[in-house]
């Protein structure tokens, strides 16, 4: 009887040990910071490192690696080392879902999700079901955060800092503006509506509003209609390469007035335009030349590591990792539930990051944004009006 009781006791102890090992999986237990943190915490980033969004995913990775290096060098988590490994979701929702399932089962205490909306939308419900705190960057799909309370987005919505562009138009005395926008990208359509709805508040009218799609190469017909009312400014609200095509045809039609664009026109996209891009103004969430101390600090560290200026995807990745590190520190544990509480606390408090003063509204990051002007191929911050 006694023997069988001992066996049962050993069995219970083993089960308890197995459970705690499972919970702490991804964390090598040890003395850590002395606040319940292990020696090492292994985080995972399921990221689009190849495929159509591969370049964006790679830029994000560089920013994340910069943050990991800094966190460990400065001993932000005491003696606890943060490690980050990558799983390539390859801009493929099916692959992203599979990688997220594997990661969730593996027991990492926090994961960073994929860059593209479609992939992120496939991953978020899996992470939520596994009660795995997850931070996405980019992935602007409107339903992403609806997956549940474990899901955070560390990229501000463009609509949250678009007011900078509108203020700029007002400061330039614009009274009559024209708008051209792609109808096949929800974020761009949202911006077009914001532009139209806010025009009166900023003292101008939208004299012509023309729709196109990102696949329509020749937009001469729309441009004739945009220029007919002789606008003071034109808002080119289109996707990536389409910016080049629309602005080129505006210049071909002889338009030399003010052009404002959406964030997608930044990051060197307008390079093929050469001098035709000079004077285009847009609001972005990050600029490496910004005077913001957080942006400058990140830019210096990034340059030291990669010998090039960072873009906004890298800055967003950097802030996402810092958000995670702050949440872990706040939690004082590598437990998923406690890290979620840590995320909630940090989101409430906000912090200073590469994107400036970072706050959150319903797990959605909000940042001040920065207005830039393109000249000679470079993006230079414009002084706030």
């Amino acid at each position: 009887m006694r023997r069988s009781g001992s066996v049962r006791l050993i069995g219970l102890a083993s089960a308890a040990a197995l459970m705690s090992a499972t919970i702490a999986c991804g964390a090598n237990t040890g003395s850590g910071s002395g606040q319940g943190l292990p020696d090492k915490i292994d985080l995972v980033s399921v990221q689009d490192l190849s495929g159509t969004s591969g370049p964006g995913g790679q830029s994000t990775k560089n920013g994340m690696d910069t943050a990991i290096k800094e966190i460990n060098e400065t001993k932000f988590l005491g003696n606890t080392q943060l490690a980050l490994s990558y799983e390539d979701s390859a801009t493929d929702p099916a692959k992203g879902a599979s990688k997220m399932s594997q990661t969730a089962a593996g027991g990492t205490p926090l994961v960073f999700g994929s860059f593209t909306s479609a992939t992120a939308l496939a991953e978020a419900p899996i992470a939520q079901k596994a009660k795995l705190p997850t931070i996405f960057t980019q992935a602007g799909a409107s339903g992403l955060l609806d997956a549940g309370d474990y899901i955070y987005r560390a990229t501000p919505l463009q609509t949250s800092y678009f007011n900078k562009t509108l203020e700029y138009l007002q400061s330039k005395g614009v009274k009559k503006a024209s708008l051209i926008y792609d109808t096949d990208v929800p974020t761009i359509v949202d911006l077009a509506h914001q532009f139209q709805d806010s025009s009166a508040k900023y003292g101008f009218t939208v004299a012509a509003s023309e729709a196109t799609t990102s696949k329509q190469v020749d937009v001469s017909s729309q441009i004739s209609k945009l220029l007919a009312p002789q606008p003071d400014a034109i808002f080119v609200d289109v996707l990536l390469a389409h910016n080049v095509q629309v602005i080129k045809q505006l210049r071909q039609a002889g338009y030399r007035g003010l052009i404002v664009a959406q964030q997608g026109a930044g990051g060197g996209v307008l390079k093929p335009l050469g001098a035709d891009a000079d004077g285009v103004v847009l609001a972005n969430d990050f600029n490496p030349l910004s005077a913001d101390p957080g942006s400058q600090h990140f830019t210096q560290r990034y340059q030291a590591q990669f010998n090039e200026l960072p873009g906004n995807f890298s800055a967003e990745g950097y802030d996402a990792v810092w958000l995670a590190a702050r949440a872990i520190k706040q939690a004082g544990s590598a437990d998923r539930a406690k890290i979620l509480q840590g995320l909630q606390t940090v989101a409430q408090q906000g912090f200073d990051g590469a994107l400036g003063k970072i706050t959150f509204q319903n797990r959605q990051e909000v940042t001040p944004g920065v207005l830039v002007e393109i000249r000679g191929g470079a993006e230079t911050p414009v002084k706030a009006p």
Partner: protein
Amino acid sequence: MQQVLNALVLWSIYVLFALGLSLAWGTLNVLNLAHGATFMFGAFSVVLLSEHADIPFGVLVPLAMVFGGLISVLLDLLVFRPIRARVGNSREAELLMLIGSVGAASIMVTIAQQATDDSPFGIPEGSALRSAVYRFGGFSISTIQIVIIVLGVALAALLGWWIRSSRYGRALRAVAFDGETAQLMGVNPGRLSTATMFAAGALAGLASVLLISHVGALTPTSGDNLLLKAFAMIILGGIGSIAGVLAGAAVVAVGETLVLTFTSGTWVDAASFAIIIAVILIRPQGIFVAQKADRV
């Protein structure tokens, strides 16, 4: 008046792109789905070159045509001819060539995507056409628009004459109708195939370098959307008919411009394809094919 000019420019771009596709399809029975990628690669090649040296625009244009032509000939030699030689059944060969062209297109697109990080590419300022804008009252036209219209009209006329009246053109039509009999009559189908594929690719290269100058940049997938519309134009006009391509392109270009002039741009693709569906339902053989001859 401005919208008439816009429609004319659009028509010329469509014609230059679709003529090459129609030529290979109508005469060699090659439904070349790599035509869009060949178009893109023609421009991509000259952009790569001009990034290393300031090449005058006047030299870039024939270079793009040569690149487009060579790519097309390579496709013929490496993909289409081996399929034709190995597969006796002509219907089966056409299907296999179509699949082969899809593979070839994805290789070209992937190369360009890797080289450009899937970003837009344009002709550097040192080599770009210095395009001026000419104004007449409320109407304006740029140098590149004039070049596109002139070349669109001139090449359509030249190709039409070549197919209808030249010795090569007559031989080509003979091969298209009955290759074996044409061969017995002394026609060399291999040489004709090479010349035709080169001409088709050269037209794609020309269209791409003109379009990239007009709109500033292309992307690795820029040819895909044009390809879909070109198929529609060819079917609309009648497969194998040069006049049919011109008419098909006119229907699409004018239709799109009318939609853009009077409604929102959202409807442009839907409206143009609705016109095409209507024509296909009323006249399935296309506008310019009077009767269909079946080879037996």
